[in-house]
């Protein structure tokens, strides 16, 4: 059976296929389930697949930068809130040396976040050239 081509908006076209990052179907996130305590924070986190689909929509809509951002977002789904806050902190000016930025990029690469790693490496080059990291 041919897979249906996804249609924007997904909330209206979803026939029960869309899943959250925990693998649960979005349609299963019911009020009863929340009250029964069956829904955890992982169940209300967007999945990388859905983000990549939205990135494709953005690209088709003529905004490759937004698409890139959503693809970077897809890479970051698996990182915990605390990790993301720390990564962001490390990228702020004067927080990290060139070496630390390279280690950060490697950490991202190891976590499957190649686009984010490239962003960090690009930042490292600029920071060094402009004296924000040594």
């Amino acid at each position, binding site marked *: 059976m041919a897979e249906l081509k996804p249609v924007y908006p997904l909330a209206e076209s979803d026939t029960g296929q869309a899943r959250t990052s925990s693998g649960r179907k979005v349609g299963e996130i019911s009020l009863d389930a929340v009250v029964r305590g069956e829904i955890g924070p992982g169940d209300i986190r967007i999945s990388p697949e859905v*983000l990549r689909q939205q990135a494709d929509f*953005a690209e088709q809509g003529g905004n490759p*930068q*937004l698409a890139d951002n*959503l693809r970077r*977002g897809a890479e970051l789904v698996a990182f915990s809130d605390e990790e993301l806050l720390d990564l962001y902190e490390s990228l702020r000016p004067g927080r990290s040396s060139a070496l630390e930025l390279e280690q950060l990029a490697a950490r991202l690469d190891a976590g499957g976040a190649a686009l984010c790693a490239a962003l960090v490496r690009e930042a490292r080059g600029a920071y060094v050239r*402009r004296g924000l990291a040594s």
Partner: protein
Amino acid sequence: MSTGPSLRAQFYATRPISRDNLVPENAALGLIAFSSPNDPEPSLRISDGRIVELDGKSEDEFDLLDEFIARRGIDLAVAEEAMALDDVAFAQALVDGATPRASVTRLAAGMTPAKLARVLALLAPVELLSAMQKMRVRRTPSIQAHVTNRVDHPLLLAADAASAVALGFRELETTVPLLRDAPLNAVALLVGGQVPAPGALTQCAVEERLELELGMRGLTTYAETVSVYGTEQVFVDGDDTPWSKAFLASCYASRGLKMRFTSGSGAECLMGATEGCSMLYLEARCLAVTRAAGSQGTQNGGIDGVNVAGSVPDGMREVIAENLLAMMHDLESCTGNDTLMSSSDIRRTAHTLPLLLAGSDFLFSGFGSIPAYDNAFGPSNFNAEDIDDYLVVQRDWGFEGVLRPQSDDDLLPLRRRAVEALRAVLDELDLARFSDADAEAVVQAHGSLDVPALDPHLVPDAADQLMQRGLTALDVVRALAVRGFEVEAERVLDMLRQRLYGDYLQTSAIFTEDMRVLSALSDPNDYAGPGTGYRMTAARRVETGAVRQVWAPATLVAEQDAHAGCLQLRELGPAQRGTRPDEVVVGLSPAFAHTIWLSLSGLTVAEVLRQVLAGIEEEGASARLVQVRRTLDVGAIGSTASRLAGSGIGIGLQAKGTALIHRADLPPLGNLELFSIAPRVTRELYRGLGRNAARYARSAEPEPLFLAESSEPLGPNYHARVVALVALERGSVVASDPLEVEATWPS
């Protein structure tokens, strides 16, 4: 001879506009709206698919912004074509309705900041607005509210969030006087904002890291205060770089949260590092960074720096130009108007009105939906005090201002429900408890000055608890459901579900009240000249028309009926010409004491006539009454009366109160004295009119009669009533000759 300022100069010094600070242009300080001599010449050089020169700087000279823009912000496929385009030709394409929006955005994507700034400097105000009408991303305009109060009263925030959504706001932004309170403020908006209708987005503007954390917990549904700046120095002083901001944007995306950047002219001046460049050029750099970072949108147009832009020549045109530039980058435009920009009501309105006429994705990035004193951002350019004015201006022009009139009957049940829902959540989660008196005061309150003070520890302690216990929106949903607020629980849960689909990560996304997502992809702006693009529906037009100030025709009927019979006129037969040389004839209009009983001044027709007759009698003349039926024109009535009078002097009296003295030998539309401003005629003046008519009759010198001074507007206060009264007069006109009448005043 006096040497001080003239009385006129002293008067102008007290005008509100004289409190505004204006400065001369000063390019060195960046106090220049467009085209600083220090702005670079546009240039772009590409070598081996890589930008090696941007706006006069070679690659090795790039600062952080240049580098980021060069690597990520410019579409190399169109750059050479776009940069070669003549500025005027591109400006014309921008304004021309027949040139499709998409062809403008395609070319803009290949232009450098200096090129774009130079093109926009060419546009006159109305050209900017025409371009804006075409270039905004979303077809349907929307609007954002500030919902804050000066004490972070959570119940009041919830009630005010409900009021804001009822009024039509689709994004609500809060912030805090006390940072610790932020999580509770966020919850108050999340709950209160879902009471009147589903789908309003809520945010809490605080420091970047905390703002992200609130979003991750689901306590906010979007973020906006991701600030970027136009020079490297200020960017770094703001404790970020383009890359850290881009990473932050991706963090929001990773949690399915809508986010937009913020910039705006004047910020670099306030931070003292403009590199001598114009405001528009620096903003063009901000917007290039915003697009390059993959933010779906921006809040710009002055914002906190609007008063800096407002201090220099062309400042307001620059602010509109930067809004337009965001749209040209295909960014969601949340277009400022969120800071009080002048002490002058005329000037602050002049800042905002053009944008309202042109339309944008969000007309305000914070209309103060709460009283100005409660705005924790500082007063917005429009505040709760101005909502009725805004609604009437929306009705006047028929632009889509997104708001709708709301009465107490509409709002009070929603405010009560919002207060009770939040109260239940905070109680259920064991965070805070409030008394019935607190709750009821909030429902009725206009602002925080109307509610009892809270224990100062209550809110920050509850907020600390919320953070320490790791509570999330799921806990809020559960508490709402358990305490019987299933509808609100479903709506808050639906906001969580929406972030699993990510539809509202697309550019310019909002939710309608039936939870459809409107965005660049589902509701693209299709304006292409007259007859195209967004137009109000008939139902929406009716909704915007029903402002509080419209009075029902029944009001006028009741007003007149309350005085019916205050004067009785008995018809004595056809009016004849009199012979007594001291006789003044008073001509009454057709509806006088028939269908009109109350004149515009608030005096009854009985009292008006009593005073006129008393004046004639005081001067020893005699009076006779006729009712003119063929015309309602006060000149013709007076002329008819004068030609029936033995003295040749007549008075014309319209039921609405307009009065004059006429003489038989004058042309019908002439007169000796006229009270044309009926609303301001007093008893004493009507009496004086009678006395003067008698003096003319006796060939004595009349006394001068002047209205008391007043600068109250007349038309807006009375014209609707004048039209209704004239219609009554017109209804009484018959093709018959004047009748002699006798008046009696029932006691």
